[in-house]
């Protein structure tokens, strides 16, 4: 005899098509009217059975703990409010909180599976999301053979360490493995030589000069330029340079030289100039002008052609040359030489960012791009000269939404960079100026002051 479930299934099959159910169903139910049978069949599934699955159930491993203290429970709502503010990049807040030694709750925030720029402490969460954690606690020394066995979150940190301690071994590993990997992974491998780059890395980098990925190519060219072995100038372009710039003499004894780009009239002319500069190196430009590269940088007159010289130095200058031009650009103008900033190390960028902050209040949100790692360690001394009255007025009285939004973004940015004392003082200053103590735009500063 069929089981009750099978007999009820037979009933259901009849109902599906509208066929008669006479004589179908469990014996005890015979004689009942159609609606009673329906009620019983419906309840049977609910009371007597549970849903099952034929496929195996796979539990996920535990979320790995972060090497950070958990963010205190009473501060989690503030973090969630910042997370929900679409005007603001959550990763910045996460990075700032990590710099203070705290980690967020995984329910409040998890990185994206494809995130490629995370605070290092969170890389284990990305690996966990991608089911890429090693099956057991393994501690392999990094070699071409153990590469796949080491957790992705550790591989690149280990490779950077290997490059610092045993550069030859690191270069051999990159040469052996990189060609077999995808472009993003090749790039990440090559980026591991960046921190401790030496002349010994030139051959390795030149091996990737013709890489099929433009990202890799750009990176390699930049690193070669750092070593002073960047691309050479094109002879035809060098011949055209005198058509675009003038070198004048200034000063009492006419000893000081000034390089000025000629004013061009049409977009087509400007485009041609940009193309000529793009084929030049800083060393090649200096040769044409019979000057040293440092003299070219010192003599450049900012104004016409500034974009071209910045792009040229960013692509072909050494670190010292890049830094020299950035300093001159900031002193001479309010220009934001982002391509140069991208070449500089974090400490130099921070120094320049703070320099800009001191003399240009409008640059508050712009400076954000210069201070790549919001570490929350800038003191009140560096920030006290900011025009807080103007910021307060923009937050409380401005009828212009853009002005208000820019001031709000600036206040958020200050929350990322200020140290605890500075954050407290900024809040006090803004509140004394008329901003409500509970104004949500102070959330990050308040979180900062509490961490």
């Amino acid at each position, binding site marked *: 005899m069929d089981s009750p479930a099978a007999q009820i299934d037979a009933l*259901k099959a009849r*109902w*599906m*098509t*509208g*066929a008669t159910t006479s004589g179908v169903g469990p014996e005890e139910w015979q004689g009942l009217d*159609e*609606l*009673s049978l*329906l*009620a*019983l*069949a*419906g*309840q049977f*599934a*609910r*009371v007597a059975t*549970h*849903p*099952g*699955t034929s*496929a*195996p*159930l*796979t*539990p*996920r*491993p*535990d*979320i790995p703990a972060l090497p950070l203290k958990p963010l205190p*429970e009473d501060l989690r*709502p503030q973090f969630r*409010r910042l997370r929900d503010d679409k005007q603001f990049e959550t990763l910045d807040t996460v990075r700032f909180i990590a710099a203070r030694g705290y980690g967020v*709750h*995984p*329910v409040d925030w*998890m990185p994206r599976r494809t995130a490629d720029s995370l605070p290092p402490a969170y890389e284990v969460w990305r690996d*966990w*999301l991608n089911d890429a954690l090693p099956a057991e606690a393994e501690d392999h020394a990094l070699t071409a053979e153990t590469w796949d066995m080491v957790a992705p979150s550790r591989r690149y940190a280990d490779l950077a360490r290997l490059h610092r301690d045993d550069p030859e071994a690191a270069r051999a590993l990159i040469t052996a493995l990189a060609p077999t990997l995808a472009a993003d992974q090749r790039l990440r491998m090559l980026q591991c030589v960046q921190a401790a780059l030496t002349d010994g890395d030139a051959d390795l980098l030149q091996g990737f000069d013709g890489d099929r990925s433009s990202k890799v190519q750009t990176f390699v060219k930049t690193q070669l330029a750092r070593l002073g072995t960047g691309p050479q100038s094109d002879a035809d372009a060098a011949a055209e340079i005198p058509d675009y710039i003038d070198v004048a003499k200034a000063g009492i004894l006419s000893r000081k030289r000034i390089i000025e780009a000629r004013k061009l009239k049409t977009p087509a002319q400007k485009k041609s100039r940009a193309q000529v500069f793009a084929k030049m190196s800083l060393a090649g430009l200096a040769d044409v002008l019979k000057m040293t590269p440092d003299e070219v940088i010192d003599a450049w007159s900012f104004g016409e052609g500034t974009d071209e010289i910045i792009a040229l130095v960013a692509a072909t200058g050494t670190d010292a040359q890049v830094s020299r031009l950035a300093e001159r650009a900031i002193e001479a103008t309010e220009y934001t030489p982002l391509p140069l900033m991208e070449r500089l190390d974090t400490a130099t960028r921070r120094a320049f960012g703070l320099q800009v902050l001191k003399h240009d209040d409008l640059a508050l949100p712009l400076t954000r791009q210069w201070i790549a790692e919001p570490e929350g360690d800038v003191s009140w001394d560096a920030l006290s000269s900011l025009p807080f009255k103007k910021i307060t007025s923009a937050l409380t009285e401005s*009828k212009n939404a853009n002005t208000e939004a820019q001031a709000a973004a600036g206040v958020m940015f200050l929350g990322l960079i200020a140290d605890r004392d500075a954050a407290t003082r900024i809040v006090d200053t803004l509140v004394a100026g008329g901003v*409500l*103590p*509970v*104004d*949500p*735009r102070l*959330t990050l500063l308040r979180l900062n002051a509490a961490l």
Partner: protein
Amino acid sequence: MTITTDTVTALAPDQASLKAASKLMKAAKWPVRLRDEVSNLVWGECQGSGANPYRVVFDASDQGYKCTCPSRKFPCKHTLALMWMYAETPADFGAGDVPDWVTDWLGRRRKTGAAPADKPSSKGKSLSLARAEKPEKPEDPAAIARREAAAKKRAEETEAALLTAVDDLEVWIEDQLRTGLGALLNDLPTRCRAIAARMVDGKAGALAGRIDEIPGRVLALTGEERLDALIAQLGKLVILTRAFRADPQQPDIRRAVATAEKREDVLADPNALRVKSTWEVVGERVTTRRDDLVIHAKWLLNLQAHGPRFALLLDFFPASLGRRSTAFANGEQFEAELVFYPARAPLRALVDQRKTCDPKAWPAPEAEPLAEAARFETALPWNEVAPVLLPPGRIALSGKRSWWTAAGGDLSLPLDQPPPDAVTGMALEAASALWDGARLSLLSAQTDWGRVALDG
């Protein structure tokens, strides 16, 4: 600038609002009345006519305000009452830290700085008139008799209409069986809408709402599960119609077919179950019905041993009013006396008295995870979902579907939707959820990462 009684009069949209506000000016109706002198903000929580208290805030410096009630009058009576009380007795308002919900309101608020198009005016409105009690006129006995006779006639008509409606529903279900449930599945929304409309005509409003939900519930499932789900839904309707015919006045059945009791009647009922306990908000469900009525359900877990394990606070408001927030956030605990609607398995309730409390732990779940749901099923077999407190377990995956699986592995229940990624890597020490016989809907859980809300 601060709030004066003149300000309240001027802001009131009409005299009736002031009258309504005056009735709310009792300390007992306001478990929370606080202010922050620095920011000039005043806020409170009022036990209004909904199951959840309303949250009210105003800015005393510029009279900006917000209330979570669904009133279409601005400001509503709750705002007016809070302003009025503040204008007369500010000392009754304690100093408090500005809560997150007030800060959130400030963040969304836009101060235009421009004068309103219609300047508020006190003309035609008076606080003293609002407070004045009208002397009750002695009623004419003949009028009372006429009114009672009319009410009796209306009740008889309603009973007849309801009986006709349940008869119609049974005939309709028989027709569907005769023509085949396959055809019904192919045309489910249209056919359900048609019979639901007939239920509305027959004064069976609750039944109509339920039938309207059937297409959404059934068609959300996989193709192979739909027939079983449809049979379960129709079967429960049959149980309900038969139960109604057997005892049309039984409160559970009446509520499921026609309409719920009035809040005032439940509160005034001397036989109503009243449970003083510590409650935790474990979840919220907001659903919009086809007729654009939003149902706001808050699930409470009883943290003490006596009384029902769960309680449900239900509020209804039109979708046109937009999303409303309620006073209780997931995870909030409070001590309160809850008044339960009369029921064989008490669940739906109203908050009568409430106060804050020290944090308490969740009670231990029962050994049999679905025992609570089974008790609901036995008492109210037409019931669709039942709250459950699940023992230790974790989330497991089977293909794309997520399952809750008990720590011992002896029970696994499929989830209605995948939980956040993070939760799949947590040990769930206990979880509160809703079980509908086919799917588990997680509300919140105690985990090795602390308490997590899963209803968002």
